[in-house]
């Protein structure tokens, strides 16, 4: 099957320290990933690992410094204008903070009707209202009459995030990049947001890139699909979600899983935490030479891991890892 989206050796460098500075940091470096239609890929990593940058590159909000972003096989940065417009319509993003991603002076009707009119999906107010009611029902804001004329401040965090989801749906997207969509939502309401997103996949075949620092929700969201673990700007391991979690192969993934607290006292208290050589995460300004993880890795081999950066290679079917331990 053809790839819906492909990032081909994508890097993005940011200038730090003012316009004239010559210091650049690579927020992401040589990211390679593919997504097929109807698939879900979770990007998991700690803050600063480049997962959000990767998401923004995927939706075309950031132009990469190097590498290509292909949508349905076409490079988005050399597309014709109308092709680019279609791509933008097809690929939508949900941001983390539902408190700042809705205009506070617009009602739910105004927020949702503007993209509908702009893209000529509806012609008049009656059509707009019936389309919006349909969308609100999809995201479980029922009865829709109760929500359509409300302002964002009259809604709870969970309700706002549903309006945000409804807004992305106005354009019938093929791919949604969801960047920490539940991290600011109360624990007891997170499941409903994730379940709504999963329902949309069932109903409309939407694909997802799910960006999170939380392995527990990633495991739930991309259960039957794939997971990529990022560290300091690179993907260190990628594979089927269940396999990656039950039997991680990269030392960083292993360390992460061994330290992750779980909501089950017996499970979490019987974990054996993997000891690292150093607890400090290196700064992005001084990303280690060779393997990014080598200063902390307990399996560090001098002269190997600190010389060359390991490539992400397929070690068994659909399992990729960037580590010299597995390179023959």
């Amino acid at each position, binding site marked *: 099957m053809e790839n819906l989206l492909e990032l081909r050796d994508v890097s993005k460098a940011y200038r730090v320290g003012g316009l004239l500075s010559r210091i650049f940091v690579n927020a992401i470096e040589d990211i390679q990933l593919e997504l097929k239609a109807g698939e879900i890929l979770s990007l998991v990593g700690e*803050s600063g690992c480049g997962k959000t940058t990767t998401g923004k590159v995927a939706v075309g909000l950031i132009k990469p410094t190097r590498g290509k972003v292909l949508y349905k096989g076409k490079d988005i940065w050399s597309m014709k204008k109308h092709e680019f417009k279609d791509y933008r319509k097809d690929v939508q993003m949900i941001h983390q903070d539902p408190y700042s991603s809705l205009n506070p002076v617009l009602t739910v009707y105004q927020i949702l009707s503007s993209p509908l009119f702009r893209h000529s999906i509806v012609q008049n107010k009656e059509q707009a209202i019936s389309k919006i009611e349909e969308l609100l029902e999809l995201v479980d804001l029922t009865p829709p009459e109760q929500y359509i004329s409300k302002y964002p401040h009259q809604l709870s965090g969970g309700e706002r995030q549903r309006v945000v989801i409804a807004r992305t749906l106005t354009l019938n997207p093929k791919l949604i990049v969801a960047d920490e969509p539940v991290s600011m939502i*109360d624990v*007891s*309401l997170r499941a*409903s947001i994730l*379940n709504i997103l999963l329902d949309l996949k069932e109903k409309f075949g939407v694909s997802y890139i799910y960006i999170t620092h939380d392995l527990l929700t990633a495991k739930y969201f991309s259960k039957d699909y794939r997971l990529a673990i990022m560290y300091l700007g690179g993907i260190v391991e990628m594979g089927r979600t269940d396999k990656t979690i039950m039997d991680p192969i990269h030392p960083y993934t292993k360390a992460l899983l061994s330290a992750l*607290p*779980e909501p089950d006292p017996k499970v979490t208290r019987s974990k054996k935490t993997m000891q690292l050589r150093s*607890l*400090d995460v290196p700064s992005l300004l001084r990303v280690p030479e060779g393997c990014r993880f080598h200063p902390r890795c307990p399996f560090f081999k001098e002269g190997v891991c600190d010389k060359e950066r390991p490539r992400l290679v397929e070690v068994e079917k659909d399992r990729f890892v960037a580590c010299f331990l597995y390179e023959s």
Partner: protein
Amino acid sequence: MKVSRLTQILSIRGLSVEYLTPRGNLKAVRNVNLDVEKGETLFLVGESGAGKSTLGLTILKLLPERAARIISGKVLFLEGERNLDVTELKGEGLRRFRWKNISMVFQGAMNSLNPIMRIRDQLYDVIQAHGMKISKKEAYERMKSLLDMVKLESDRILGSYPHQLSGGMRQRVMIAMSLLLDPKIIILDEPTTALDVLTQKNIMNVLKEIKSRLNLTMIFITHDLSLAAEMADRIAIMYAGTIVEIGEVNQIFYHPRHPYTAALLKSVPRLSSEIESIESIPGSPPDMINPPKGCKFHPRCPYKHEICMLEEPLLKEVEKNHYTACWMDNDGKSP
């Protein structure tokens, strides 16, 4: 894990706190009764707006004076024969009480260090401000031993400025600082949010070690059930300003009695279990300016009866050390 009923160190009785808002009074903490045992690790778990942070602040009388009011109740600090009601402390007495008896590490505490002072000077400030009568040399010895205890290289850290340290290191400095005056209780409000998993684990290990070494009492405030599963001896579940269930960690996780606790546990995904789907709790938390009558959870509760809408249940012992505030447990049925 068994909680040995040793001696009480803190007893909160009938505590209610309100915030004054333009729309009316917000009932942040309502009739909380809570006994804390010496040497235990107690978790206050709840979602945003459940009143857990307000409760933590009230224990140290740190509420904003104009905006908040203690409506009723006492916070008794029990030491030997003395009973000290924190809510009645004022001025110098209050200042001497804080930090010396109970100290607090705040949410995002690592950002509350002064950026232009060396760690050494900030720690020394605390010692001076609280009138600890020791020589400068003794003070440095104390700082060093505490920094060692939180697994920091004391010599390097003392001479550093905050920006030279990572988030996890700064958080450990804050923990060391909170221990300077040798408090009996330390309250930690979301001590590890915003830290990555590996750093978080490290801080938890440091805290466990300190606790057993100093026989400290720890009160954690968090929304994170995983953290509670890992660290807690006892857990108090808060909802709409009050404790709806309290018990030992295994009782809460494996035999929850309150429908809210049970639903909350079903709403979090797990890594290594067969539980395939998670469910949200329908509806949303009540508006605490105009809370519903009766049990505050009834609008979202699948088991509600007539009485739940009329009268609020009080905490009732359902097994040893395990209390829940639910009408169903009056006739012995659990959700």
